[in-house]
């Protein structure tokens, strides 16, 4: 079996990948229709992230570095997928002969930009920079109700300019994916890829990352926080329930202060990619916004139960204490998530307030 054939299997062998392909198809179909163009570009961008993740997984396998031709083939995966997207879009586009070539060229440019931006977020070294760019685009995008009109207008008005810029950007990203520096950096670097639901692998991944970050100054809960809660636990040793409630509050509050970078980035990632109705101006989708808030809180609750029981054997405590610790965990976690959501909305308002006038020549929420 040739390396390329072997690597291409990652695009169809796992059941989950078909869900990702479906999202792409929805994105393309939406782009052809008159509705929600900005969301379709977001879907394609998200698809780029998924393909970038697969490519990164292939490059991170230690054997890949020495295997002749493997790196080149892994680099070709996002390129081949991009070609496939272009062909699918072209076929669907030209089924309606009224469409003009110039619109096609402009649209392909926008699709390519979205897709390769998604790829680069995951793969390249400056991923914090690319991630910030990615977030700014999403947040600005979402806060402006006129984006659909602008996007509809852009491929026609500036088709060749868009195609030219997108061609250069795509080529540069493609080169960066397979660059020696990038490949060396990714080799043997832990990567969860598409198996994020495997808890064992997730644990190994987290611990490996922690070990790799040992040389940096580790974040740790401040001694004053630690001492405050330890004293509370000690002073309530006679009332074990109170001691455990303080203990659980310490764990729930202490943990995020250690992972604040990851939580900040991960939280924006989730909000940016999956909770877009929350960020869209309320006049557009008030019900969706409420639904998303409810969804986030419900999923927080589910995650809390999962995380809590994962560590349930850590301390030998009675069922009553387990129950109350669980309640405290759920309560404090929901408070933290609510706070985070408020921060995300304020942040998106701030970013779009600054950038909308520059990018779209209008203030956020105003009609063209």
């Amino acid at each position: 079996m040739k390396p390329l054939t072997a690597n291409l299997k990652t695009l169809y062998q796992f059941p989950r990948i078909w869900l990702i392909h479906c999202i792409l198809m929805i994105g393309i179909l939406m782009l052809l229709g008159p509705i929600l163009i900005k969301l379709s570009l977001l879907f394609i961008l998200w698809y780029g992230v998924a393909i970038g993740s697969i490519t990164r997984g292939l490059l991170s396998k230690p054997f890949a570095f020495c295997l002749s031709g493997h790196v080149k083939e892994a680099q070709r995966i996002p390129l081949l997928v991009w070609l496939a997207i272009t062909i699918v879009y072209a076929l669907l586009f030209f089924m309606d002969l009224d469409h003009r070539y110039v619109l096609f060229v402009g649209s392909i440019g926008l699709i390519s930009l979205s897709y390769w931006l998604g790829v680069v977020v995951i793969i390249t070294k400056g991923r914090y920079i690319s991630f910030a760019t990615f977030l700014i685009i999403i947040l600005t995008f979402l806060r402006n109700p006129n984006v659909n009109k602008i996007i509809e207008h852009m491929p026609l008005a500036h088709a060749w300019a868009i195609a030219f810029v997108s061609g250069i950007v795509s080529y540069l990203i493609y080169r960066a994916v397979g660059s020696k520096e990038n490949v060396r950096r990714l080799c043997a670097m832990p990567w969860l890829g598409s198996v994020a639901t495997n808890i064992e692998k997730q644990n190994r991944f987290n611990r490996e990352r922690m070990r790799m970050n040992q040389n940096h100054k580790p974040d740790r809960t401040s001694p004053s926080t630690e001492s405050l809660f330890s004293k509370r636990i000690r002073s309530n040793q006679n009332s074990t329930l109170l001691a455990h409630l303080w203990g659980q509050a310490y764990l729930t509050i202490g943990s995020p202060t250690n992972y604040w970078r990851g939580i900040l980035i991960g939280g924006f990632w989730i909000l940016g990619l999956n909770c877009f109705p929350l960020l869209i101006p309320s006049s557009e989708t008030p019900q969706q916004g409420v639904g998303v808030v409810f969804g986030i809180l419900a999923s927080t609750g589910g995650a809390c139960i999962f995380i809590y029981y994962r560590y349930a054997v850590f301390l030998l405590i009675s069922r009553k204490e387990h129950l109350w610790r669980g309640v405290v965990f759920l309560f404090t976690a929901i408070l933290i998530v609510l706070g985070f959501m408020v921060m995300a909305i304020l942040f998106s308002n701030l970013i779009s307030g600054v950038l909308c006038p520059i990018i779209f020549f209008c203030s956020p929420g105003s009609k063209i």
Partner: protein
Amino acid sequence: MSDHKPIVEIKRLTKYFSGKAALNAVDLKVLPGRIIGLLGPNGSGKSTLIRHMIGLYLPDNGICTTFGCDAEKLSQRELPRIGYVHQEGELLDWMTAEQLIRYVSAYHPGWNRELEDRYVNDFDIDLNAKVGALSPGQRQKLSILLAIGHVPDFLILDEPASALDPMARAQFLNLLIKIIQQKQKTILISSHILSDVEKVIDHVIIMKNGHIIEDQGFDDLRDQYLRIRLTSLGTSLPEEMPFERVLSCERNNGQAVLTLENPQIETIKNQAESIDCRIDFHPLPLEDIYKIVMSS
């Protein structure tokens, strides 16, 4: 509590997972002061049994009492008397080792700081490292410290040494021996490293397919089997050996090694003389006994 009242008493304990019996009508008594080796292949039900003892799993049938209390209802009166090293070694990865020790010790008024300091020194635990960044061996050492720091009456060790290197395992065994020397400490060790386990245990429980197939004192179990080496003093060994209940026999150039069940030493000596052989006796290591029990 009287000295001979069992710490754990299990009667007809049955547990099903997805319709499959992980434990099947298990009966067991753990008496105080015993050092018990809980042995068995993967999936035989060892960890499931342990988790019932501390009330983590609830039985589908049968009863499990620990310290005289239904394991399901163990409260903060009984639980601090138990130390438990969990097989998967789940800890709080985001804390430093020191923070974690302080956090756990805050719950225990009787936390032994002297033992902690000695242990941290002997086992070379990096207190400033994040728990998640520790190697598997270091994590296991930390788990052991967290389980013994409050000096529990009943210490349960589920695969405690699987990630330790040989030096650390030797240190760990020494530590166990020190704990054992304190009166009335009861230890239950589940492990696959039988060469280590046999140095400390005085009682053996062997499980297979959710059943306990052996539950007796280690010395009694060891007395049931014997390995003898026969060296012919004449020309060669006879084709037919006079020994009874031979479990295995390997012959090689005038020498033979036999494993016997329920041996009678005097009878064996006489039989060896009758075929003009010199005889050496070797007690069977636990690993070989385990293989025999499992295959019988």
